[in-house]
């Protein structure tokens, strides 16, 4: 039974990876171009007029945040798009009628999202090397924050896709939650330099901890303790995993 689930998991992951690689011009290229423009405009053109931040050039300062931004968006888009289309075309029934367990379905789709998030993050990192010779202060921290964050946003995307009744619903979270929270999460500025009231408000934005954590991994500077950030992301991940499992088990929007 375990080996059956493992093969099923491997099949979902392979299917997901082949899917986003087959349409790489829609899945891998746009985020890389997008972040390259950020590097050019904010890093090179505007950044040259801004002084150092915490001992780093502005370009070096924004690179970790932009990598995290691309990881968040790509992992979310992968799962919400793929799962919703499977629902829309009814091809999700291929999985539902098979002995594949709910946990395997969740794990397969989440791994698909994580691989795309990490791949895009790595590509953005490679592009950033054309603009600055940034070094990695703690690779393990970068790996932990990238993986945990992409898991969390893949899980959120799965919940979004389970409830989505049309294509518009798949972009609501991105437009009204993800994008504002990411831009206000300290990608382009240091939380320390905000007025006290905004610093307090920012503490309720979970993306702040993700960007702060990955910035520590690259540059060795942070506002919040790495352990606090990892704990917050892990707690959110556990919570969303339980929710996703509950909704799939209850078959919300999947079975009549």
């Amino acid at each position, binding site marked *: 039974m375990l080996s059956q689930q493992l093969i099923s998991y491997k*099949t979902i992951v392979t299917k997901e990876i082949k899917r986003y690689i087959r349409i790489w011009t829609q899945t891998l290229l746009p985020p890389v171009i997008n972040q390259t423009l950020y590097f050019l405009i904010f890093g090179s053109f505007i950044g040259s007029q801004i002084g150092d931040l915490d001992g780093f050039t502005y370009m070096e300062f924004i690179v970790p945040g932009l990598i995290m931004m691309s990881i968040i968006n790509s992992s979310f888009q992968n799962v919400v798009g793929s799962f919703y289309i499977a629902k829309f075309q009814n*091809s999700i029934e*291929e999985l539902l*009628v*098979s002995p594949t367990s709910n946990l395997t379905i969740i794990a397969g789709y989440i791994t698909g999202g994580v691989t795309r998030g990490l791949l895009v993050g790595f590509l953005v990192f490679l592009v950033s090397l054309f603009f600055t010779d940034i070094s990695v202060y703690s690779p393990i921290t970068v790996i932990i924050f990238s993986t945990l964050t992409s898991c969390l946003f893949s899980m959120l995307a799965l919940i979004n896709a389970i409830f989505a009744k049309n294509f518009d619903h798949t972009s609501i979270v991105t437009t009204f939650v993800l994008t504002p929270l990411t831009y206000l999460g300290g990608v382009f500025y240091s939380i320390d330099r905000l007025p006290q009231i905004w610093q307090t408000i920012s503490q309720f934005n979970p993306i702040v901890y993700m960007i702060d954590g990955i910035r520590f991994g690259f540059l060795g500077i942070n506002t919040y303790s790495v352990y606090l950030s990892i704990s917050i992301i892990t707690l959110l991940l556990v919570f969303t995993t339980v929710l996703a499992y509950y909704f799939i088990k209850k078959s919300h929007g999947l079975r009549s």
Partner: protein
Amino acid sequence: MAKKTAAISIKNLDKTYLTGTKALQNVSLDIKQGDFFGLLGSNGAGKTTMIGCITSLVQKTGGKIQVHGIDIDKDFGKAKSFIGVVPQEFNFHIFETVLNIVCYQAGFYGIERDEAEKRAEPILKRLNLWQKKDEQARNLSGGMKRRLMIARALIHKPKLLILDEPTAGVDVELRVDMWEYLKKLNKEGLTILLTTHYLEEAEQLTNQIAILQNGKLIENKPTKELLTTLNEETYVINFSKKPSKKLIQKLNLTQVDDETTFEVTLKQKDTISSFISKIPSSDAEVLDIRPKGNRLEQLYLQLTSKK
């Protein structure tokens, strides 16, 4: 000798949708291993809901279902491993290739890719899809898509194949070919549950028929036994010339199409030869006599209108 476990055993199955629609009411039936079982009913009778309950796509609201002795409420994973499903609507990823669709499905049943490809080749060849294996599913014709769904359902060698109107929209030649293939699979021991609108198909293929009407089971008998309950049958007769008025009245003929074509409804006790013997040689000669529709169709109409 120990009694064989039923391929499907359904007891008091109920399904009420959230809208309040009672799709299935207290349905009980057994499908024996090796049966070619026909499930008939008009649109909305509950056939697809019943299949959904067996395959987990629909959540039953009451009753018990066992697949090869496995209670689906206790070990649905194992029960599902026995079943192959061909749904009514196309439900594959249209941008995937034929071979990938079949092999991914094998993977969901725990079959490694190498083994899946070995299994896929003879199935796709038999269903005339091997030459299309690298084609995206969206480029296939309607008939090919239907055959692809059959190939996908067979890849894990199920003990029970469920076909929900598999020949809908398929041309006659292909339908007959599909029938031959299904008959062969059934002869090899595969239990088949078939829902269809083509009653001719059910009469040709099945050995047992159940009829659902408004979510209730109104009949469940061997096909042959069911057909013997047909108490009247309508025939179309072509005469050499227009029969006399006297003969038309005597035999209760009804004119159709032209003045030499008539219909007559015979009771089960009346044979065709006794009917023909009533026609005097001086009157019109019978050129051709044939059943108006298939027998099961007439029986189906009788049963559903009666109940």
